[in-house]
Structures are given as structure tokens and as C-alpha cells.
């Protein structure tokens, strides 16, 4: 029996399968959830369509015209839906486990505790957002590549880097979330976790160029280097939406830094998670 290692992949498949069984037993709710997720994205498009009635681009000479920005928006949705599908329900559950003392059970299992709390629930309905993201991405790329003047020519390097940076972005988001969720050990009830999450990641939803005016630089530095949420969407969207030849050296440096930031976030979140577990004491004695 010694030396046995559980197959994390199989455990994850069982998690995903169980979640699907659960979601299917509340079918109406599941469908409603899909519909509301999709209507959310539609409203978002509506908002930006209104905005682009009054302007041609977000920020002067930033290159984020309507279709480029829709690539950005699609990237936001793709990353968000991955986070919401795989991590969001678990982070919320984690806070709840800490509060109720049910974390005990996760601690008893002979698998890594961070794994055991990060993956048990998969919110399949949130994947509908991924679908919407891909559709919007496809549509706006089509618009960009077929426009009469200066059509975008897709670069195979960009096509390879895009999914890679999507994964990096998702990992950064996951790390921020785990850090936030871990704080429930010290802060007690943490119902507003979702709010914190929303407020922090809110900065990632817009092209980073808009912050680079006046005192916005301070924000730009903070959310690029200290809490690197600005890199999450900006790097992959920038790579995909506009020709790589127009990437300046600073952008390339940031792209390199994003890889480092991903690893650093993962490392730090792991450390904080372990600290949190140590401080955890069961709710009932």
C-alpha cells in the first residue's frame, strides 16, 4: 500500500462528473443559469455598442477600435468563464467550509488539500460564457481580417501564444482567488469574497492603456507588477487583436514578465494557503 499516489486526473474527472450529475438534477435552474449568463454577455455587447456610437476607439491612438476591443472583450469572457467554471464555486465553498468547520473532511483525505478544495465543484453552466467568448472572438477576428483597409493577417505565433497566455491569465486569477478565500481563516465570515474578487478583477477588464495617464500610472504599476491582474487579459488580447509587428519592446517585456508573474502568483498563493490551513482550527471543539 505504501508509495501509492492517487490519480489526480481521475479524481478531477469524478469531481467534474459528479458536478454534472448534480447540475442535471436541477435542470431548469441549469438552463436559466445558461440563459442569464448569455444575456449578461449580450448586455455587455450592448453597452459597448452604445459606447462605440460616440467614439471610434477606447483611448486616443491606442489601437483599440471596435473590433479590436471586441477581441479584448471576448478574451475577458473566455478567462472569466474558465475561472467561474472551475474555481469560483470552490473558492466560495472554501470560505463556507472554514466557517462551518467542514474543512475537517478535506484535511482527512489522502490527497493534497489545496487540490481537494480547488476542484470539487465544476459550474458547468458558466461554460456557456466560454462559448459566447469564442463566438465573439471568431466574429471580431473575421471582421478584422476581412476589413477593406489594413486587414489583420493572423500570425501562427500569435495563434500559439494566445491559448498559452489564456492559461497564464486563468492561473493568475485562480491564485488571487485562493489568496482571497484563504483570508476567511483570519477575517471570519467572508461573504463579500465575490465582491472583493469583482472589484480587484474589475481592473483587468479594460485595455491597460487607459490607465497610463496622470496618477493612473500608479494604478498601472500596482496592477501590473504587484497584483498582476492587468496582464491577465491584456497580454493575450493584445497578441491576438493586433499584428505582432506593432508590439513595442515594452509589450514584449510585459509578455515575458507575465510568465514570471504566473509562477510567482501560484507560488505565493500556495504559501498563503498553507499558512491559512495552519491557522485554521475547527469551528467546533
Amino acid at each position, binding site marked *: 500500500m505504501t508509495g501509492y499516489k492517487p490519480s489526480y486526473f481521475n479524481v478531477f474527472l469524478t*469531481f467534474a*462528473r459528479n458536478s454534472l450529475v448534480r447540475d442535471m*438534477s436541477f435542470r431548469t435552474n441549469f438552463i436559466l443559469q445558461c440563459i442569464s449568463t448569455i444575456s449578461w454577455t449580450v448586455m455587455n455587447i450592448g453597452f459597448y455598442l452604445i459606447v462605440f456610437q460616440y467614439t471610434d476607439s477606447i483611448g486616443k491612438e491606442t489601437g483599440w477600435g471596435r473590433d479590436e476591443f471586441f477581441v479584448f472583450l471576448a478574451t475577458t469572457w473566455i478567462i472569466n468563464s474558465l475561472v467561474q467554471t472551475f474555481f469560483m464555486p470552490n473558492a466560495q465553498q472554501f470560505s463556507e467550509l472554514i466557517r462551518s468547520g467542514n474543512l*475537517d473532511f478535506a*484535511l*482527512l*483525505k489522502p490527497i493534497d488539500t489545496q487540490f481537494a478544495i480547488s476542484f470539487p465543484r465544476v459550474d458547468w453552466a458558466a461554460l456557456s460564457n466560454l462559448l459566447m467568448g469564442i463566438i465573439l472572438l471568431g466574429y471580431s477576428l473575421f471582421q478584422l481580417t476581412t476589413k477593406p483597409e489594413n486587414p489583420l493577417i493572423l500570425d501562427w505565433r500569435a495563434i500559439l501564444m494566445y491559448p498559452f497566455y489564456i492559461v497564464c491569465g486563468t492561473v493568475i486569477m485562480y491564485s488571487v482567488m485562493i489568496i482571497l478565500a484563504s483570508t476567511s481563516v483570519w477575517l471570519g465570515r467572508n461573504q463579500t469574497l465575490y465582491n472583493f474578487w469583482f472589484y480587484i478583477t474589475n481592473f483587468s477588464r479594460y485595455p491597460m492603456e487607459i490607465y497610463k495617464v496622470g496618477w493612473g500610472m500608479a494604478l498601472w504599476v500596482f496592477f501590473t507588477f504587484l497584483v498582476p491582474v492587468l496582464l491577465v487579459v491584456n497580454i493575450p488580447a493584445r497578441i491576438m487583436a493586433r499584428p505582432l509587428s506593432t508590439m513595442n519592446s515594452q509589450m514584449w517585456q510585459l509578455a515575458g514578465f507575465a510568465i514570471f508573474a504566473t509562477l510567482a502568483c501560484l507560488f505565493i498563493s500556495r504559501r498563503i494557503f498553507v499558512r491559512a490551513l*495552519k491557522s485554521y*482550527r475547527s469551528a467546533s471543539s
Partner: protein
Amino acid sequence: MPMALIELHNLQKTYRVYQKKEGLRASIKGLFKRTHKDVHAVKGIDLQVEQGEFVAFLGPNGAGKTTTLKLLSGVIHPTSGTASVMGYTPWHRENDYRRRFALVMGQKNQLWWDLPAQESFRLHQQIYGIEPQQFQNTLDELTNLLDLRELLGQPVRELSLGERMKMELTAALLHSPEVLFLDEPTIGLDVVAQHNIQQFLKYYQEKRKITILLTSHYMKDVAALCKRVVIIADGRIQYDGSLSGIIDETTNRKLVTLQFADPLTDQLMNSLKRFGTVVRHEAPRVTLGVTRDDVPAMLTAILDAHDIDDLIVEEPPLEEVIAEVFTRVSESSAVQATEDGNC
């Protein structure tokens, strides 16, 4: 000297809790300044348990039983002291250790609420890496013994409390643990369900020869299952031995019930009080609590002076004796509360 399967040496656990004060003003103050209280849940426990024992922990609420079980499961770290279970230190939480024991808590559930229990079982199979054949055999055996076969496909939220507890037990036993910690497994269950679970535990423990530590408030659980009883109160072990031994060791009283042929006058009652305390008085019967050594002398004196129709000498009931131990402990230990204002 070979080590016992479970060994605890001077195990201690102190919690620090935030104290909520009464009143609006105090709670606004709590925003800025918090008072903490140190709760000494376990104040130093020494214990050895051999392989195959079935030990009961008895004690009042907050005595430290559950904390001890959690320390042994590695869920929490002790403040000081050592523990070894099958050679492992529990709070190192090694995977090898975690695959060899199980903890069942009567007040918490680990099964997925909205799913049929069998889905949770399958998850356990994956997490504990149980061979499919072995998994099926164990599951069949357990579901037969606990009579759960029909319920496996039903969402857990639709099960009764008793059925849910049986499912929890099944989940905990799927990986055939060698050590089992049970924290009030029969809490809130009706008499039939309690009895079923007792029968099951008894059978399973005797068959598999596993080691079980159980906490319970029900003396029936304990009487039915455990030869060895550990009384924990105020964070310390107050008694460790056989169930019947509790009476010998912790009380030196016997109950003497006398049925008088003469009417029970006040004078007679007063004369009885010389021998011991009157526990019950339902004319023509009187029950007295008498120090064990005094019983012969007392009987001789009374039989000489009065006509007695009937006479019973018996041990005091177990529940009362244990309750007595609990109150004695709580009276003797002053509440230790150190307060400090920490932000």
C-alpha cells in the same frame, strides 16, 4: 517496550477565541478592540490504546473529547505534547496515514448533499485509490450489513437522519481503515437507528479487529460496545478502565432500599439519617445512600430495631455515578479565563 497502537503524551490544545460582549455599545467597541479568551480544551492527556480495542470517551460537552479526536486525526495541531497513531504523528498529515484511518462526525456530513450517496462513494474510491473489485466487495458487504442497498441511488438530502448516518459510516469504511474515530455517531437518532448502528459497529469491529475510539452521550452506546471507558472532563482524563470499574473507583456508596412494616414516622426517618442520605422516600419504601463499609453495621442495627418486609442492596446507576464525576470535576476546577485586549 513495544509502542501501543495509539499513544498520547501530555497532549494539550489551547484555543484563542474572540469574545462577543452583550449590548450594542460593546459590539461597536468590538470593532476597534477585541477581547480574547484562551480556552484550554485539552489540558494534558496521556493515553495508550492497543490494537483491536474499542474505547469510549465520555465527558460533558466541551470536555475536550472532540478536540482529542481532531488532534488524533491531524485536523488540528496541538499546543504541546506528542501523539503517535500506528507510528505516525497525526498532524504531519502524511498520505499514508490518512489512508489508514477514518473520522466520522455525527454532526457533520461529508457526502454531497444533492447527489446519490453512490456518487460520493465513487469519489472516495478515486481519492483513496481503491481497486474496483475490492471497492465493489466492500461496498456490497457494508450496504448489506447496514441495509442500504435500495437507498444508494437516492439523493442524500432525501434520506432520513439515520440513513444518512449509515451512509456516512459506509463512506468512512470504504477504504478499510485500521483505526476509526467516531464522534457522536448516534446523535439525534431514534432508538431503532441507534440500535442498528450499535449492532453494526459491534459486528464490524469484532470481525475486522480494527481499533475504534468513540465519543458518545448515550450510555447505551457505550455499554453495548466498549469494554474500556475513558472519562474526560475539564480537558483531562478523570478515569480510565472498565465500565463496571467506574462505580468501584469513583463512588464508595451503595443504595440500600428498605420496605418497613411499621409506619414511617418522622422519628424513624430522623433515626435513618444517621446511616446515610435519603435518596428516595416513597412510603413504605425508603432508599438510602450508604458508605460501602458501613452497610453491614447499618443493616444489623436496622434489622434489630424494626420489622422489615423487603430489603435491596445495589450499586448506584451508572449514569448517576458519571454525572457525579462530571459535577465534581467542574466544581473543583475554577474557570480559567485570561482576558487581554488584543486588536
